[in-house]
Structure formats: C-alpha cells, structure tokens
C-alpha cells in the first residue's frame, strides 16, 4: 500500500474524524443547552401524563427501540418497516464492531462465525432497510418535494459504508483479527501501529475512509437526530404535575358553602 494512503486513511483520517466529531458535538451541546426558555409555557411536553422521570425514561426507551409513535397513524408502512429494519440492523452492526477491540472469550473460528452470520445478517438487514428508505424518498412525490441534497447525501454515505463492509464480511472475508483489529486497538490506545494493515485490500481502505468521513460529518448535519431528542423538552419535559398535587380542603370552606346569589 502506498505509504501516503496508509498514513492518510489509517492515521490522519481517524484522528481528524474523531476530533471533528468531538468539536461538533460540543458545539451542538452548547447550542442546545444555551436556550433557557421553552416558548414561554412551563411545559411543552407532548406525551400526556409524563410527569415523572420514570415515565419520561420509559417513553425514551419505547421511542428508541420500539419506534412506537410511527405505527400510531397506520399509514406509511414503508417508513415503519424500512426504518425498523435499517436501525435494528445498524445497531447490531455497530455493536459487532466492538468485537474488533474488546477481547472476547471466543476462538478465531467462533469470532469468524459470529462476524459472518450475525454481523453479516445485520449488515444485510441494515443495507436493505436503507435501500427501502432511499427508494421511498425517490418514489414518493411528497418526499421528493421536501428532500434536499443532504437528505440523499447521508443515506448515500451510509449505503457506501455498508456496501464496502458487506463486501469484506460476506465476500472477501479478510483476516481482520490480525489486521484491522490490532490497528484499531492501537489507534484507540493512542499508540498507532500501521503495520498490521499494510496489506489490506481496497474495500477495507474504502470502508475506513468513508466511515471516517461519516464520523466527522455526524454532528454537523441531520445525523444529530439520535442525540437531539434527549435534549428536547417536548419529549423530556419538564411537565407540570397539575394532577399529581391534590387540592386540599382549605380552612373556611364550610363557612363559604351554601352562599346565595
């Protein structure tokens, strides 16, 4: 591999991407936390009766894992199924990537098996889900009307990452335990070692390159959506607990009763 490519893709790009991710995330956090008001009302909560933190937490869990708001209107099944297939798939894929750096009590063949069948299946699901969402965006007039460049750029980027990743996992099946794994560990430990990836194939290079581009882009565009709602007062409250505080009978009530016009 050309040393410039090797240094650029496997050394500069990862650190640059993470730096941009951190800077962008901090920038966003400041932007989200700086506004102190919530359009003047004490509560702008949407979900009724979410007074306590327990209810809010349960609502968040349902949103993340159940997509529970979408089926309520029972119309756009393509969005529901496409969204669920993609997200469930991509979560498993992301978790699978931890296997590259976290020591697991698995043999190399078991590692390979899990990567191929679980990671591979999840990757295919995520890929298909994303394709469904892109086709929906392209085929429905209302979606074309509201879409701009970024609405195609983000899914396009993800599609590329998944394609390069799937090519490796399902077709090329490189010895990533002795190549990508030690390299990624060295990067995380801030002791970069580029030797293990000196001879990796083009799909690994492209996968890492596009993934770095995506990581750097996350806080600057619509990819903030998966963090944003944790800060959204419409979801997280505060909600004013009018029905939880009981109105006590006040002294003098009896004296007041029975008044005449």
């Amino acid at each position, binding site marked *: 591999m050309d040393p410039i490519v090797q240094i650029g893709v496997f050394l500069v790009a990862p650190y640059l991407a993470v730096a941009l991710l951190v800077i962008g995330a901090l920038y966003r956090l400041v932007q989200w*936390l700086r506004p102190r008001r919530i*359009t003047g009302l004490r*509560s702008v909560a949407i979900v009724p009766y979410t007074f306590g933190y327990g209810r809010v937490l349960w609502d968040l869990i349902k*949103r993340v894992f159940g997509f529970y*708001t979408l089926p309520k209107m029972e119309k*756009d099944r393509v969005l529901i199924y496409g969204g669920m297939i993609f997200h469930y798939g991509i979560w498993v894929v992301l978790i699978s990537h931890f296997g590259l750096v976290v020591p697991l009590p698995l043999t190399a063949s078991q590692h390979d098996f899990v990567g191929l069948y679980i990671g591979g299946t999840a990757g295919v699901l995520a890929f298909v889900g994303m394709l469904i969402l892109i086709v929906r965006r392209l085929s429905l007039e209302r*979606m074309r009307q509201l879409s701009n460049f970024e609405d195609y750029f983000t899914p396009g980027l993800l599609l590329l990452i998944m394609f390069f990743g799937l090519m490796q996992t399902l077709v090329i099946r490189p010895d990533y335990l002795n190549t990508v794994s030690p390299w990624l560990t060295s990067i995380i430990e801030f002791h970069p070692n580029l030797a293990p990836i000196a001879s990796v194939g083009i799909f690994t290079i492209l996968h890492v390159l596009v993934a770095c581009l995506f990581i750097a882009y996350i806080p600057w565009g619509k990819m903030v959506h998966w963090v944003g*709602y944790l800060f959204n007062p419409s979801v997280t409250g505060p909600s004013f607990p009018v029905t939880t505080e009981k109105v006590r009978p006040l002294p003098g009530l009896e004296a007041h009763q029975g008044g005449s*016009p």
Partner: protein
Amino acid sequence: MTEVASKLVWGDSSQVPPFWLKPEMLAKLDKVVPRKKGTGNLAHDVVCGLKEQVEANRNVRLTIDACVHCGACLNACPTYLTTGDIHNSPVGRADLVRRALRAETRAGKWFKNLVGAERLTDEGARRMATYYHQCLECRRCGEICPFGLDQADVTRAVRSVFYDNGIISRYVGTVIESSERTGNNLGLPPPAIKTTIEFCRDEIQEEKGFVPRYKVDEHAYAMLVPPSADFFLNLETLKGYMTFFYLAGLDYTFTTEHAELGNFGLFNDERHLAKIGDHIVSVARKLDVRLVVAGECGHGWRAFKQYVIPRLRENGFEAVHVFHLVIDAIKGGKVTLDPSLNGATRYVYQDPCNYARAADLTEEPRFILAHVTRDHQDSPHSRERTWCCGGGAGMLTDELMPLRLAYGRLWYDDARSVGGQHIVRPCAICKAQLNAVLPKFNKETKDKVAYSGLMDLVYKALVPPPKPAAPASTPAVAATPA
C-alpha cells in the same frame, strides 16, 4: 365535499390567507404589549426574529436542528392531508424557516441550495406568514414524530416574529385586543354576562325544578372561569356548570372581570399569553378565592394548566379543571346521574387536541361520559391521535372557511364511520367550529350528526335531589383530581 373542492386548489393552499390585522388595531395591541421595532425591511427583520426565537427557546432550536425529513408528520398532519400542499405541512413549514436561517450561515452562503439554503425575500416572508397561519397548532406532528419534534410550538414562535413585524391574523388580533380590554374574547359587557346567567338560572328552574345558587363578582371559595362562548353560544354547557356546582354544594362565583378561559395569546404571542393569564391571577386575588376552576376549552386549558396554574400557585391559589371536580363528586356520591336522561343516542367522544396532546386530560372526560350516557364510544382516532376540529389556532374565521371545511372532513368521517349520532367535544373552539361546519357536512351527506360539550350532557343527566340541598357539614368536594 364539493364546496371545498370548488375553493381550494389541491396542492396549493397559499391562495387562502387570513385577513391581516389593520395598523390601527395593531396600535391598540401595542399599548398593552409594545412590539419589538425592526428596521422596516420585512425579510431582514423576520430572519433576525427567527434567529432570536431559535436562540432563546430550546424546543424551537431542537425542532429546527434534529428533523431528518423522514416525512412521518405528513401522514399525521390534517392540514397537509386535506390540502396536499407540502408547505402547508409541519416539515414543509419548518423548511421555510430552516432555509431562511441556513442562508445566513457560511455554509448557506457558499453552497446555497445544496445545503437547503434560500435567502428570504419580502414576498417569501409573506408566503411564510400565510402558511404559518394555516397551521392548527394541534401537535399531531409532534405526536407521530419519532423524535417528538413539535412543529406547532415552532408555529407559535414564528407567528410571534411576524406579529413583531405587524403581521397577525385579524381575527386573532381582534380577539386578543378584546380579551385584554374587556376580560373576554367576545367583548361581552358585565350586564350581558349577568343577564345570560340569570337566563340560564331560570331555564334550570324550569327544566330541573330548583333555583341554583351562584355568585357573581363576589368573594367565594371557588371562582369559575369558563370560556366566554359559554355565555353566548354554549348555554347548555353553562347550565351544566351551574347545576353541577349547586348540587355538589360548592360555593363559587362567576367573574365578569375575566369571563374567559380562552387565551389567544397562546396561538400567537407569549407576551399576550402572559398578560391575559396574569389577569386571571389578579382577579382571583381581588375576589380572595381559594380555588380557580377552568371550564371546557381545549387551548384555554393548555394555557391555564401550563401558564396560569403555576402563577396561581406562586400566589397561594389552587386550580383544577371542572372535570376534576365532577369526577370527585361522582366518586364521592355527591351528585346523582341518570345516563338514560341523555337518551339512546350513540355519543362519540373526540378529544380536543389541546386536552390530549398538550395538557393531560384524556381519561377524565371519558370517566364522566361513561356516567352520563348509555351508548358512548371513542372516535377511531382518539386520545393523542385525535383530529383537530379544524378551527384551532385562530382558524375560526370566515375567510378561512374553505380550509376549515377541508380540515373538518377528517373528524366528521371518523364519527360517521362508527355510526356516531352525536359528537362530544368539550372545547369552545371545537363547538364553534362544529356549529359552523356540521350543518354543511350534514347537508351533503344527508346525515343528522349533532354535537355538544360534556357539561351539556352532565346537565341533562344530573338528577335533582327530592328537596333543596341543605348546606353540607363537611367539605362537599375535596377537589382531588382523578
């Protein structure tokens, strides 16, 4: 719905703007709450105002930032579903704002349309104003959005910006002015309110056989604040309050000084929302009451619960919705109800959007309805999925009738799909909208669907005691919300 089709062009609702408030009326509002003065360049001032709103309000900032353009809200939004205009939708409206704001950023200046940036022009600003005044603020978009992004609250913020620039619906502006000048939206003078109450007292005597006690502008334990429409259009609702309070044995007073639960400041401008809301607190203090009771009104209850009740509590008062008291009275056996008095009609309950999606009042009315009717059921789209009546957020005006008819089709079809003969909507705006559009819908379908509030049905179902109620020796109503 041929009438609708003849006036609305599918895919372009911009041809149906509201009438805008005239400068002389704006000047009257300015005397109460002075507007921010801009440079006179509409587009520039609007963009500056939008920036301020985004930087000041966290929910507005998040709603603008975190939308992924998934289009889920399009399937939920009554304004988009019935007009087919992408800009008359939550995501479409917000995009008008987003494009204008992005045009001010470096990325927007460099990449323009590539990053969805578009410099706002005066014409674009007026177009934005029209679309933002076609939003019902019903929050159905926020309910379906996976991230809970509530475009209705962005509507409120954007309308506030336009108000600063002298653009406000004539209807909304007139109502706000009337509310701040007279204490009620309709501008009813105190003698008219008293006469209406006396009229209802006589009707109750005739229909129920007793004279309900009440006070007007006097010290009492509780102060009832119904929407002013209940003194004008919804007299059965008013009779419901009066009969219930009397039979429950609660000492209460009406106030002519603030005979209004509705708060049109909610639709348009926070400063007026606060001004109108604070007036309730000052009247409660003046009459030295302990408890303030809200009547039937969806948006009024939202403003009351989320703004006025905290202010009341800061000042040592308590407050509830009248439904909380009714439930307490039913559970405590303080009142006797006979559901058969409301006949064998099939009642369909349709949640007012502000009860269900903004102010936690979905189960209480159902509890009451179950005790006052025999045949009752939910609309297919109920609770947080409920359809707005089509008159919310200041749409209740004649020039917007084509849109009101289009929007209203959704709940009408919903009610008929379950054989509903009588729609129950405990909200003054809903009732005013149904009063206007239901005859038109019924004429077209040759059906006879009726409507009412909930206290109307409570009134009919309340059974008078054998003899006049004696003063209770213990607190009659502990006012414990359900």
